[in-house]
């Protein structure tokens, strides 16, 4: 009887430890690795048009997804956290794809580049966060 009790206590202890470990693991899992994730490739104009035509439908395809967007840079700036922000042109006069870069990269107005990042939805522009500039050679459109 005593032995059974000891075994039960030991089992309970192991289960608790396992539970704590699982909880710790889940709670501290890292953010998604954007750099290594596979991406949906699209050009900035097509992405913007998909959103301005039907936002709900576009969200089904792109929101929370890693997207590699190719387009012409129309503005480069810095946000209040010191991160580089790049606006990619669409065929709209004012709006396009607003990308916040995770790591700085030399980017100039007028050049055509590809940025890979996480799509969070549509305001006046399509918004991409945690972006990385990727080499043209790696992009297959």
């Amino acid at each position, binding site marked *: 009887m005593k032995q059974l009790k000891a075994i039960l206590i030991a089992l309970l202890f192991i289960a608790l430890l396992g539970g704590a470990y699982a909880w710790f693991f889940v709670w501290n899992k890292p953010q998604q690795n954007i750099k290594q994730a596979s991406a949906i490739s699209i050009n900035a104009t097509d992405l913007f048009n998909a959103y301005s035509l039907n936002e709900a439908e576009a969200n089904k395809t792109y*929101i929370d997804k890693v997207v590699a967007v190719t387009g012409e840079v129309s503005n480069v700036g810095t*946000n209040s956290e010191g991160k580089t922000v790049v606006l990619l042109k669409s065929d*709209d006069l004012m709006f396009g794809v607003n990308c916040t870069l995770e790591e700085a990269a030399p980017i100039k107005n007028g050049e055509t580049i590809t940025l890979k990042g996480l799509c969070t939805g549509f305001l006046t522009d399509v918004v991409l966060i945690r972006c990385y500039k990727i080499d043209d050679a790696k992009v297959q459109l």
Partner: protein
Amino acid sequence: MKKTVFFIALLLLTAYSLHAQDLQLTRNGQISFFSSTPVEDIKASNNEVSSVLNTKTGSLQFVVLIKGFQFRKAAMQDHFNRKEYLDSDKFPKSEFKGTVSDISKVNFKKDGTYPVTVEGNLTLHGVSNKIKVPGTITVKAGKISAASKFTIKLADYNITVPAIVSSKIAESVEITVNCNYEPYQPKS
């Protein structure tokens, strides 16, 4: 194209007369929030806030994407977006529409930090509430920025915190807004 026409129409509606130089825009404003309890501090920020300020009429708007709030821990971010909390699949955006009620106190031609009062409707989690909060408008070398810090009660926006985690999430969260505006320059 359609979006621009809509946007300009909206601006025309909100401003009695449209003078391009009166409009200040940003698409990279910052909104962050902070919830503090003895057990856990939770902080998240969003740096892709869209905002329009009309320096003449004081009309002020903000829109932000809920999924764009970034947390230190991925698990916190998952929880935040879930049905039980912000339900960002159903309510992807939060917005504020209102006015700086004492915009006339701000001299946009003179450098300085001007305390102002902002009133309007804040929509979050599909619930709209009238709010009145303090803020500042700063003019520096022709550049305009706006800042505000205020608290909201989660219950006012139908966000109920499950009892099991109530020790970790405060009933009221502190919201901080920071926007550096650029003058609206229409392209012809």
